[in-house]
């Protein structure tokens, strides 16, 4: 059975501990199997509670970090610090230079464009770098819900252009809610409807909320595991490795 993923849910949707059950219940009723919660300071213990409770609802919960660096140096420093602590790392591409650096960096999973103006940073040259760095672009429904009229129309136009470039260059597209409160969340089929608005191919739309984010998470989980060495290289048996080490020291 297909697993639907909302790769961007803010921790603020769980505004109090009493509400965790109710909110997890709504999320599972909406049809999700996996959610990624964007992380705030002091959220660590709270996250563990959510993770424990989510098992009762058949949900998998992962940590996500949204970076908003001031410059490229800060981006690199933060990536060094946190890459191994989070399953998903996304960069908000408000600045062109940061967008280019994030697209190039393999440690970045998704590029996020939170405003209409920021979408203009996603050009063909940035797309080439993103394709090399295997970085996906993220389209948040929340960005569309928060604007009206001319601004929404222009946002749809710019997002459609970005999606067209991404498809042309073979960059993965992820559609998520970006919800900061529970009423900004939508079901997977409703997220898919955004894909129709952006003229994505029909057979591709469903993948943007299922297979594509699922594969990103799966790859990152294997990278974060202790046995990972390089892509395609893994330690299969730790005991065997220890034995061979011991043999080397003995000789």
């Amino acid at each position, binding site marked *: 059975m297909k697993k639907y993923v909302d790769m961007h849910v803010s921790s603020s949707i769980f505004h109090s501990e009493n509400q965790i059950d109710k909110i997890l219940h*709504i999320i599972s*009723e909406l049809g999700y199997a996996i959610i990624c919660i964007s992380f705030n300071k002091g959220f660590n213990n709270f996250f563990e509670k959510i993770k424990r409770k989510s098992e009762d609802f058949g949900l998998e919960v992962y940590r996500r970090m949204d970076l908003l660096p001031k410059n490229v140096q800060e981006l690199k420093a933060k990536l060094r610090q946190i890459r191994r602590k989070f399953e998903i790392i996304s960069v908000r591409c408000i600045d062109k230079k940061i967008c280019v650096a994030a697209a190039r960096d393999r440690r970045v999973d998704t590029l996020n464009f939170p405003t209409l103006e920021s979408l203009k940073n996603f050009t063909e040259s940035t797309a080439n770098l993103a394709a090399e760095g295997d970085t996906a672009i993220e389209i948040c429904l929340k960005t569309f*819900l928060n604007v009206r009229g001319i601004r929404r129309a222009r946002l749809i136009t710019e997002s459609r252009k970005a999606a067209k470039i991404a498809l042309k260059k073979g960059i993965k597209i992820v559609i998520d809610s970006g919800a900061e409160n529970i*009423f900004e969340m*939508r079901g997977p089929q409703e997220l898919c409807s*955004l894909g*129709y608005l952006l003229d994505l191919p029909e057979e591709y739309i469903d993948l943007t909320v299922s297979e594509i984010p699922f594969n990103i998470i799966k790859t990152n989980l294997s990278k974060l595991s202790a046995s990972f060495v390089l892509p395609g290289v893994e330690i299969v048996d730790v005991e065997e490795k220890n034995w061979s080490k011991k043999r080397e020291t003995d000789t």
Partner: protein
Amino acid sequence: MVKEERNRYIVFKIYSNSDVSKEDLAKDIWRTLLAMYGEYGASKTNFWLIEYDKNTKKGIIRCTHMTVNMMRTVLAFTTKIAETPVIIKTLGISGTIKAAKEKFY
């Protein structure tokens, strides 16, 4: 002969903290539909709110088979009903009201 325009019935459920009336629901879906697709686009959908049950918070809307995705977008973009924040979730789509009720209602 095959009919050019066939109706589809979308069964939906509303998640909200307070009750929503059928009139307010219809009004706000119309408002979103007109804002997103204009009067011409709205006319193409043949949209109508067939029924809405306040207790179960489930309802059925009608549209043409060509405009199902348009209506789904409209439901996704309907954020508030009479100033109450809501989530509208599609439960299923059917070709007849009877089947819609039997399968999803």
